[in-house]
């Protein structure tokens, strides 16, 4: 059974309504996440990949109830997440924890490591005193830091070490699912590899489920078992990672992979298969979101929105022309 089940999840933001936009023609609807469905199996890594503004982070915030959804359903172990009363949200967060992108912004600069990592222990388990310190030491060692780091402040650490602190904080609640939102994007390659190795080791040893969000195809391809590709608020393709990377079916996925520079492809010429740029889904027209940029578009792409359909075994694609 799936640990997390997302059905037709939708988030619309109203943009404008301020003084100037009232002059300019009223509110617009940003369909940041539009009717997406997917499920995360237990003990697997689910990769969510896409360019900026495609709705990856919004999806993460919706699942963790950091922002309210417009419509849709989210089930975590059968629990109806979106209709959970406010006082029970904390119970949900015990099971679902997040790791954030910017390790400089996501740690309180005025708290010591022991308090940063200890806080979830106090909140969720009521841990106090020496017991709490002992558990923090255990967590520090789990993420490759040492006990002498206990009483230091975040500014005394490098980016990679801070990200380890963020991981330890997420693990403190003993969650079943961790949502990592671009956890290695701000790190240099050599340190990025350390953190990726750590995440994979922890995921396997603790049998965690992981939703790994990134714009970097190489990183997602390395870590994820299942990959969903998002574009302008929609899931364009979803399937097993091996399949997505070897036989992508959606033209957007194909373009992403072709645009993705890899060290192995250094001799190849540069070509950009997609013209133009991502347009934000502000009052989007009917039809496929990729239509204005798509190399294989046909007339109906403009009017009829393609549904995410299973085109191969466990491989869903949203495209009329596949």
């Amino acid at each position, binding site marked *: 059974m799936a640990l997390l089940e997302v059905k037709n999840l939708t988030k619309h933001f109203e943009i404008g309504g301020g003084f100037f936009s009232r002059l300019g023609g009223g509110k617009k609807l940003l369909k940041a996440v539009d009717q997406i469905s997917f499920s995360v199996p237990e003990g697997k890594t689910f990769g969510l990949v896409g360019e900026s503004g495609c709705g990856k982070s919004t999806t993460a915030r919706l699942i963790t109830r950091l922002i309210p959804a417009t419509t849709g359903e989210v089930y975590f172990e059968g629990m109806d997440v979106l209709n959970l009363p406010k006082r029970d949200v904390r119970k949900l967060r015990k099971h679902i924890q997040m790791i954030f992108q910017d390790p400089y912004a996501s740690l309180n600069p005025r708290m010591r490591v022991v308090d940063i990592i200890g806080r979830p222990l106090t909140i969720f388990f009521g841990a106090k005193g020496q017991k709490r310190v002992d558990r923090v030491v255990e967590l520090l060692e789990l993420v490759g830091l040492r006990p002498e780091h206990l009483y230091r402040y975040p500014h005394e650490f490098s980016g990679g070490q801070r990200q380890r602190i963020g991981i330890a904080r997420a693990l403190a609640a003993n969650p079943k699912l961790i949502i990592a939102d671009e956890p290695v994007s701000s790190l240099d390659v050599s340190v990025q590899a350390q953190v990726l190795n750590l995440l994979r080791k922890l995921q396997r040893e603790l049998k965690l489920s992981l939703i790994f969000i990134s714009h970097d195809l190489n990183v997602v391809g390395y870590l994820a078992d299942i990959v969903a590709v998002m574009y302008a608020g929609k899931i364009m393709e979803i399937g097993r990672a091996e399949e997505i990377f070897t036989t992508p079916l959606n033209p957007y996925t194909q373009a992403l992979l072709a*645009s993705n520079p890899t060290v192995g492809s250094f001799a190849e010429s540069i*070509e950009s298969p997609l013209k133009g740029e*991502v347009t934000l889904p502000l009052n989007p027209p009917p039809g496929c979101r990729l239509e204005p940029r798509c190399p294989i578009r046909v007339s109906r792409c403009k009017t009829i929105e393609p549904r995410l359909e299973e085109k191969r075994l466990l491989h869903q694609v949203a495209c009329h022309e596949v």
Partner: protein
Amino acid sequence: MNAPLLEVKNLTVRFRLKRGILNAVQDVSFSLQESETFGIVGETGCGKTVTSLSILGLIPCPPGEITSGEILFEGENLLKKSPREMEKIRGRRIAMIFQEPMTSLNPSLTIGDQIAECYRVHMAYSKKVALDFTEQMLSLVRLPSPKTMVHCYPHELSGGMRQRVMIAMALACQPKLLIADEPTTALDVTVQAQILELLKELQAKLKMALIFISHNLAVVARLCDRIGVMYAGSMVELADKKSLFTDPLHPYTRALLNAIPSPELRDKTLNAIPGTVCNLFEPPPGCKFHPRCSKAKEICKTEAPVLELKSGKNLTACYFPGA
């Protein structure tokens, strides 16, 4: 072989800060022929940007100082030039593109005014002529409808379009050398591919030399013929693109190439480089990479290796290069 267009010799740059002296760039040398593409790769704080700012005479002084070295551009030492003389070179003969297109454009001027300024200042063209040239530049970087585009403000454009404006501005006076400092880092992959394609095409068309700086080896590889790898302020390896990727000699280059994740490496542990980059205020004696190097021996801890031809085709600063 002709005299090189640009020759950087033993460049050393330091910053005097409250915490002490930061050795940003140490003894870096490289040269560049006309219409050659040269890439500088390295991680945060390795000195790539400081090197390029030194070429343009943009190191803030104080706290920065270039303590030794020469930068020869078309035979003239740029470090001996007065600020006034540098102003004439900067933007005219050497131009630069920066990483963040939003912060390097002036938000309160139209992009037409900003590009036209290059022509007005360097070429002393009239307003009308400058505007004509500006429109031509905008269509050269393939921005749609240049006639209306000149009246746009930077906030009206997307990231990719802003970077195209930056390129148009840099190329306005047809410089001999273009320095691009992480020009695609802030962009999405599909847009990055477009900008790389554009840069490559314009570089060939205008026959200018290009120094392309990036932390991303794969991006540099797409654009450059020769590549220099920097670590903690020093150039550790310098080679042709092909031999750098097929036969890297310096342990750092090898480690860097091995640390890049990819779908093919799934189920394998990545070969991460242990530790972190050394503190540039108090760099370790000897080779600066030795605390993280798997092949370090006694000599590495005491004497810094120099960049030279040891074996194979690559220049490398290592006592024990290769496998």
